[in-house]
């Protein structure tokens, strides 16, 4: 018997973020406020992080080991994400955005 929280996770949309020196693909993702979503980080060439503190995203993936987290965005807005696992001289430019919008019709 699965708990409601477990069922929510199973139902969550999965968004895969591919990370390689020194970019994320895609570099912008739109999420919906109140809807659970699983963010999965896949690293291609080196360990990479994905950090967005206000959304509760704090991932660390290596080429052998993806990392993921399921979140439910609670507020609308645009949130900057960074790689926080140092990956080389271009590391400081490795960024992307998460845009959280209101549910349709609300």
């Amino acid at each position: 018997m699965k708990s409601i929280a477990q069922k929510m996770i199973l139902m969550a949309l999965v968004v895969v973020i591919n990370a390689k020196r020194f970019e994320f693909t895609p570099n912008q993702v739109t999420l919906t406020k109140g809807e659970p979503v699983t963010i999965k980080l896949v690293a291609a060439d080196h360990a990479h992080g994905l950090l967005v503190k206000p959304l509760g995203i704090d991932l660390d993936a290596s080429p052998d080991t993806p990392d993921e987290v399921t979140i439910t965005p609670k507020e609308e807005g645009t949130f900057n994400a960074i790689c926080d696992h140092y990956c080389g001289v271009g590391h400081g430019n490795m960024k992307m955005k998460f845009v959280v919008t209101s549910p349709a019709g609300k």
Partner: protein
Amino acid sequence: MRLSAFSLGAGALIHFAPNLAFAEGVKRTLRGKNGEAPTPFSFVQLSDTHVGFNGPPDPLGTAAFERAVNVINALDPRPDFVLFTGDLTHDAEDAGEHAKRFKKFREIESQLKVKTLHHVPGEHDAALDGGTLFRENFGETHYSFDHRGVHFVAIDNVSQGRPRVGKEQLAWLQKDLARYTKSTPIVVFTHRPLFDLKPEWEWFTSDGDDTMKILAPFDAVTVLYGHIHRENHATLGNAKHHASPSLIFANPDPSVAEKKPLPFDKDHPFNNLGVVEITSQKLSGTEGVQQILKEVTL
């Protein structure tokens, strides 16, 4: 305890002067525990020399570092030691090239007429190789020592790749501090800030709170760090946190939207590096380090 600091073009010159009433209480304890009681002294913090960096924000390379060496060598009296708070080198994809940058750093620092030098790594020194080159040049990435009644702790929050101290080092810190009384002055030096200064610019340490909890029982804790390439001063709980300017280029105020190095000013090449006039002000009480800064144009 009284710790006061003067900012130099070189970084920060820090004077430690125990006030008499405080010192007498601590003296006996520290002498019993360490064979050493608090006495006045000074030291200098330098940060973010980035030897090997080559780019528009600072086309002069190591000029500011070399100037800092000259400033320190002209001090009278000489400081007891110099602390380097990371990013001594700018990393290179080729390990051999990075090793050359460490060598160049050591050539420049060897010109300092100061006997004792202490270092912690920044991410540009140690994040790609886990600290191998740093250890070859300077030894362990975390350690501690006592100096004239003050306990100094070097914390490594870069060599695991992420901004993290890690459980192993936190356990070491707990053990290291266990033998000190709560009134022992503690100076931590590290690379990244141990609090959330601006996480979206990587100006944080993920387990900085855990680190500061271990330090919380102590009456006077001072944290000296670099990484952010600008001055910053914050008092959080019992601890005072102070960032030293960089010796390569300056970053903007964290209130702005974009982290973009301040442009190089050829007429005032060291102006953006936190060059300040040396000034002084008497302080009293257990205030920790106080930076007294007055910006000037050179």
